[in-house]
């Protein structure tokens, strides 16, 4: 008998089960508060700032382009292939590389760029979190290797929180191999409980919410 069979047999024996289907699990606890858009924006801004990130709410893609241009100041940046970044004209800013589809090239750029620019599929306004689903449009390393992460998020992607997210995406694995919630800059308190930001991930996170 292999380990799989032996372990399953032990589990069943221990529990007094014969492999029959279990009774229904307790219903998942999903409570969706109704939060108006303005309140979501306000909460997102506050939470990100409280986490020592920065957050702004801008009306148009053009404003977002100018904001990102001022942040990067022409320094090296790697931008994801997200459509909105192209739409807003962020991918053609000076110093910004985008449209990379080759892995080694992407790694090299992410390891040396001063900024990583991405969008986010959703944001959780009650915790100030970005929700990133890995896809051909969003590589993982862009929000991870550069020391500064800029996330440009259209306002209609702001959700109230986890409950709304898991209502929209009851089975995230059907859509992506990797879903990550990013809540503020990378941090540690491993030495003497002293908070230090930018351990392995970005030490700075800027959230740019776009749209009325």
């Amino acid at each position: 008998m292999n380990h799989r069979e032996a372990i399953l047999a032990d589990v069943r024996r221990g529990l007094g089960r014969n492999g029959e289907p279990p009774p229904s699990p307790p219903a998942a606890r999903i409570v969706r508060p109704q939060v108006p858009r303005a309140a979501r924006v306000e909460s997102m801004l506050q939470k990100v700032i409280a986490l020592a990130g920065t957050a702004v709410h801008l009306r148009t893609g053009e404003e977002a382009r100018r904001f990102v241009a001022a942040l990067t100041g022409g320094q090296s940046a790697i931008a994801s292939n997200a459509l909105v970044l192209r739409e807003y004209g962020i991918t053609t800013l000076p110093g910004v590389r985008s449209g990379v589809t080759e892995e080694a090239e992407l790694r090299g750029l992410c390891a040396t760029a001063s900024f990583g620019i991405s969008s986010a599929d959703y944001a959780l306004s009650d915790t100030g979190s970005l929700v990133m689903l890995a896809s051909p449009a969003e590589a993982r390393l862009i929000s991870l290797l550069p020391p500064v992460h800029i996330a440009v998020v259209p306002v209609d992607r702001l959700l109230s929180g986890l409950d709304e997210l898991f209502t929209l995406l009851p089975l995230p694995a059907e859509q992506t191999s990797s879903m990550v919630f990013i809540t503020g800059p990378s941090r540690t308190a491993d030495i003497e409980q002293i908070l230090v930001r930018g351990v392995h991930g970005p030490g700075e996170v800027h959230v740019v919410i776009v749209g009325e």
Partner: protein
Amino acid sequence: MSARFDQKISETLADPRLQLAIYTATGRLMSHRKAVVSEDALPEYQELRTQASAIKRHTIENLDWYLEEFERNVIAHGGHVHWCRTATDVADVVLGIAKQRGARLIVKSKSMTTEEVDLNERLSHHGLESVETDLGEYILQLMHQTPYHIVAPALHLTRQDVAKVFEDSLGVPHDIVIENQTLTARGVLREKFLNADIGISGANFLIADSGAVTIVENEGNARLSTSAPQVHIAIAGIEKLIPRAQDLATFLKLLARSATGQPLSVYTSFLSGPRKPGEVDGPTEFHVVLLDGGRTKLLADAEKRESLHCIRCGACLNHCPVYRKIGGHSFPWVYSGPIGAIITPQFHGLDSEPALPFASTLCGACAEVCPVKIDIPKILLELRAEVRDVEKQNADGQLERAAFRAFAYLAVRPKLWSRVLAFGRRLPVWPLGPAGAWFSERELPVPAARSFRELWKERQGR
């Protein structure tokens, strides 16, 4: 009590710097937690605990079903599942994958399960370099130490300790600035991430309906370990299952709050397979290693089965008056504090450290803060009863039984009782022998000159 347990406790109590470090760190974690689970901050906190407890109970009681569902879904998304009985089996699986890929360098994110099986040691015997990448764990690996705490592994170390080990092991100048130490580790480990062949992680949850692993962390090292290398291996105990992705809406609200006082940790990853077509990065191979390692034995015990509901938040350690005095390294295994006191004897047998279930005041703080409501004091009492049963069989504890027989004899003879007590009160208090250790930390109250019964008699006579 084993000599080792006794000695470790004495050393910890005698080290004022260590006492302060444990007290400060756990105190800070306690107050952080309190702020985010308060009625104002999270009115639904108790409801979430009840839900989490019910979900865990349901999953554990039907575990075979959810294990198979999980396995089916991992395979459906292009991943592999490996079932392991023992630590050796886990090492063999990793070695097999490494051999197939011609791998040399492994980056590892924090995982208590891999501490359980002493994975790094086993891999290094076979010429593989396996590097811990969580800052605290990295420092501990350089110092050849085990974690002091489930979520704050290096809480017993100072910046001076870190400066010394970085100077000795990495050849960098002595530097006690914590920010610089962090940057040094970032630099060294960044190279490892970019060159590693395999990334190994643990899992906070295994999601049956998705075939996914969920990993909660703050530094980004787990994200890097599971994103940069071509192969990701997640290693988890079989008890980590929950039925549905939607259950995370309950568990994620509890885990980081209970552990570090954060509403969500900085990075929460939900990983369900190798990269999909068209993705530019991410692992091309995804493996999940499911470890028994004594868990099936524990499952068979209906009374204590709930020990397997634990989500490893560490809150019970922070709130335990015993952990806060004796620290993490006094405990005989990688799990310390109240949760360590109940799972260690159940995984390794009572005789591994018979005193462990007694290293508790039964104050109940652990059960009160447990996000999944494990009744730790109840399980400690059951383990104590088992230790006593074993002692009875071994004819140990004769002195104690003789003492109770004497008590029973006296307790039903009031006159003799008061005479014995009157005599006892006149004896000088000299804490000798084993009692000496007890009194080194405490003062014995001086007995009253006259007993309550004497005073009562006098009053009645007036």
